């Protein structure tokens, strides 16, 4: 059976054409698919496989088409020549396809692995992306809840900023366009070489600046910290600036500075020395007074150990005192310095000091240092010693005054009776001599009691304005008369007058000159000088008040006083002389103290002694006129005299003396009795012409109290005040108290007669 060959030819040609079309179409799809994921190995494989198939399909279809064309055109011979080539190409295509076929597994495996890695990578990327998102959110949250922050590009464009930044510089967020940092935040550094961002661009790692900005009407101060933003290659890609609001800190700093200033001023102004230290005992602060006392300036002292600056010793033992800082740090309590502490300043000056120390604690009550507060008490100590001395003298004085008063009453009786006895013409010469000796002894005793009374409480000075020079010269010349000692005087012409009791000051000068003379038994020279001193600023002086003084200085070239005796020379009954009473300088000190003055002594054994006396200058610089004698001895007149004294012996002897003078005498033991007698005498018409009244009557009305009542009875009454306290102010200023005259006990007949006669005249 024959079957037509035409269907085969037709299918061959048609199939070949269709295959060619499909081949090219397949290549297109495959290529497009591959290009969608160029890195996909499997797609590349499919593409290559497609290419191999396309190659096979094209070569085969082309070969078949050529074959059919040639055969249809009776060119079988030519085809026979071509067909081996066509077949061979097809064979090659088969092998290529085979090769791809058997490598499918390999490609697939690689693809799967890559896909796996890719999936892992994608998963990782997803996780990382999520993490990044979280981080981004967290960062944005932090960013928007932190201080103002902005990021700027290297060409100064503001790239990003947080809400806090826009709250302060809102114009930066208003513009939709890119805004330059200097437009967003104009400042004094913009467009200058000090621009922080420019400095960062120029290579700085960090720039810190400060800026003030008024926000909501309130000036706020910010610290701007500018830092570079670098990429992985450390190349600058931008700048970040953070703004820390330091307004409160600034205010606190200002307040702190003000407080420190105030503290510094307070410390400087404080009258005490203040030294603060750290825990190691090194000086951290020293105020002005401390600088003056220690001799170290603040610059020199800071950082040095306290003992080096605050060099203290025990003034009794001379050994170094304990370091107060150690005690403060250990006890952590306020500590007083040991007594008798002396500060040795840098130049060697010694200061007696009092001090206290306290720990400095931080806010947690932890000790971080110590503060030592001290003051110079050298003068205070001297004053205290002086006061002690005065008190001692006063105590002795009260005692002495009391004894002297009673002693004077006894002496008055003895002296009066002796005088009365001496009047007796029948006395033998020998008796008269003996009584005269006894009388002299009573006078010496009286002088002694006078001296005792001078520094006793009752010995207040009766001051008058006078020139010190004149009194000093008269007194010194009087003492040195007949000695080998010469006295040189140096008094300025304009020497101020002083308010003094001439008699007491004379006694002072006499005592000192006498001591000086005694210190130079072989003769010598005494320098006496006076000068004016004006103390304008008491802080610079040992004086506590601004005032004017006259200084008297008496210097001898005698044997001097030993150092251990210097402190005692003003004590009563202390004497370095065998015949000395020990009262001279005690009285001198007492007198000067009662004149509100100062007395000081410096002495070097073998060289000499210098007494320095300071007396306040008189307020009135014109001398008190000399007291005029108002009473004159105008002859004898007999009268009726009332004698009032609590001491019977005194009453009796006074009565005898007055009787001897020819007067009628009435006696009263106190003021009450005296007033009764006076009243009775007046009423009886036998008027009393004169009264002699004791100043003080223990337990009864004394003269001082009685005189007022007496004058109210008889304003014309004449009364003589009599007292053993010869230095009592009433005795000195008797007229002010209503008395007509005054007479000291013990009375001398002549003195009594003189006074009585004057008043009766």
């Amino acid at each position: 059976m024959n079957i037509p060959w035409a269907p085969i030819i037709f299918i061959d040609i048609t199939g070949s054409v269709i295959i060619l079309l499909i081949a090219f179409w397949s290549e297109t799809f495959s290529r497009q698919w591959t290009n969608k994921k160029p890195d996909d190995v499997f797609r590349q494989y499919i593409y290559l496989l497609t290419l191999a198939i396309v190659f096979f399909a094209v070569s085969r279809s082309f070969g078949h088409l050529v074959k059919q064309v040639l055969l249809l055109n009776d060119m079988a011979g030519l085809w026979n020549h071509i067909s081996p080539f066509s077949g061979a190409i097809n064979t090659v295509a088969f092998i290529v396809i085979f090769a791809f076929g058997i490598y499918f597994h390999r490609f697939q495996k690689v693809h799967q692995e890559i896909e796996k890695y890719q999936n892992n990578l994608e998963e990782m990327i997803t996780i990382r992306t999520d993490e990044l998102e979280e981080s981004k959110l967290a960062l944005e949250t932090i960013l928007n809840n932190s201080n103002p922050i902005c990021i700027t590009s290297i060409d100064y464009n503001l790239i990003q900023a947080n809400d806090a930044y826009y709250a302060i510089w809102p114009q930066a967020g208003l513009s939709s366009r890119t805004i330059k940092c200097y437009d967003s935040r104009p400042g004094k550094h913009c467009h200058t070489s000090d621009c922080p961002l420019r400095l960062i661009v120029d290579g700085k790692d960090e720039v810190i600046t400060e800026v003030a900005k008024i926000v909501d009407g309130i000036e706020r101060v910010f610290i701007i910290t500018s830092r570079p933003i670098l990429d992985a290659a450390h190349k600058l890609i931008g700048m970040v600036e953070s703004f820390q609001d330091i307004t409160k800190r600034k205010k606190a700093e200002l307040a702190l500075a003000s407080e420190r200033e105030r503290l510094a001023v307070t410390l400087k102004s404080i009258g005490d020395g203040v030294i603060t230290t750290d825990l190691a005992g090194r000086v951290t602060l020293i105020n002005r007074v401390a600088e003056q006392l220690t001799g170290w300036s603040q610059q020199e002292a800071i950082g040095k150990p306290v003992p080096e600056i605050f060099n203290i010793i025990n003034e009794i033992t001379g050994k170094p005192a304990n370091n107060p800082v150690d005690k403060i740090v250990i006890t952590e309590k306020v500590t007083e310095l040991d007594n008798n502490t002396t500060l040795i300043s840098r130049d060697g000056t010694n200061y007696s000091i009092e001090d206290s120390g306290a720990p400095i604690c931080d806010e947690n009550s932890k000790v971080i240092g110590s503060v030592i507060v001290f003051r110079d008490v050298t003068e205070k100590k001297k004053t205290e010693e002086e006061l002690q001395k005065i008190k001692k003298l006063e105590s002795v004085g009260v005692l002495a005054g009391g004894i002297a008063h009673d002693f004077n009453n006894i002496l008055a009786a003895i002296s009066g009776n002796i005088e009365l006895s001496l009047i007796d013409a029948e006395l033998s010469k020998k008796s008269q001599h003996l009584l005269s000796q006894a009388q002299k002894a009573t006078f010496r005793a009286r002088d002694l009691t006078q001296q005792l009374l001078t520094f006793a409480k009752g010995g207040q000075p009766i001051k008058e304005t006078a020139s010190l020079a004149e009194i000093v010269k008269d007194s010194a010349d009087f003492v040195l008369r007949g000695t080998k000692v010469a006295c040189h005087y140096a008094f300025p012409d304009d020497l101020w007058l002083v308010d003094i009791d001439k008699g007491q000051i004379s006694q002072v000068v006499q005592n000192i000159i006498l001591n000086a003379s005694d210190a130079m038994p072989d003769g010598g020279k005494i320098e006496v000088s006076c000068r004016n001193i004006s103390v304008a600023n008491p802080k610079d002086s040992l004086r506590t008040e601004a005032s004017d003084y006259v200084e008297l200085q008496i210097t001898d070239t005698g044997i001097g006083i030993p150092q251990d005796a210097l402190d005692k020379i003003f004590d009563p009954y202390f004497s370095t002389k065998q015949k000395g009473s020990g009262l001279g300088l005690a009285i001198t000190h007492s007198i000067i103290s009662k004149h509100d003055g100062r007395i000081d002594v410096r002495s070097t054994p073998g060289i000499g002694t210098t007494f320095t006396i300071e007396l306040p200058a008189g307020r009135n610089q014109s001398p008190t006129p000399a007291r005029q004698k108002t009473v004159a001895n105008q002859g004898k007149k007999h009268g009726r005299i009332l004698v009032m004294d609590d001491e019977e012996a005194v009453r009796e002897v006074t009565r005898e003396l007055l009787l001897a003078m020819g007067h009628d005498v009435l006696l009263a033991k106190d003021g009450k009795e005296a007033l009764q007698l006076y009243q009775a005498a007046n009423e009886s018409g036998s008027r009393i012409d004169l009264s002699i009244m004791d100043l003080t009557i223990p337990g009864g009305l004394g003269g001082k109290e009685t005189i007022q009542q007496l004058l109210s009875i008889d304003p014309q009454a004449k009364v003589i005040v009599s007292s053993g306290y010869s230095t009592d102010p009433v005795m000195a200023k008797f007229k002010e108290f209503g008395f007509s005259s005054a007479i000291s006990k013990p009375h001398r007949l002549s003195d009594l007669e003189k006074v009585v006669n004057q008043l009766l005249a």
Partner: protein
Amino acid sequence: MFFKHPPVFSILPVLMLLPSPVWATQTHADAEGLIAHQTGHFLFIFGMGYLLFRLYRIEHKKTGWAEFKIFLLLTTLWNVLTFSGHWLNEFIPPEKFIKAGSRTVSFEIDSIIDILYYLSKLDHLILVPALLFLLLALQKWNTQQ
């Protein structure tokens, strides 16, 4: 490599161990072209079959892969058909082809071999659908991925 693909690489040693003639220096006769071509078909079949085997085990649900497998299956069938055609051609005497000049106009069928040969010449009926499935697979991949 050798042990992973024993079918492929076992052919070469078998051919090389044939006692005569010595292939390296022999003159290539006319039959050589057919053998080489048939070997190519054999490798083609093996390659497609192997690919199909792998895909059958791995890829069977994803889009386009069913079409690709059909393409492989049809290509394999096409190879078997054409391989058979080439082989049967050796048994067809030239007288079977009735010619008008040098053109074949009909074919004389006397046996089953003649029928099989004639059918083998209609291989495009398999190859064209095979490539169409390839195109379809590629189109799906390209569209969906």
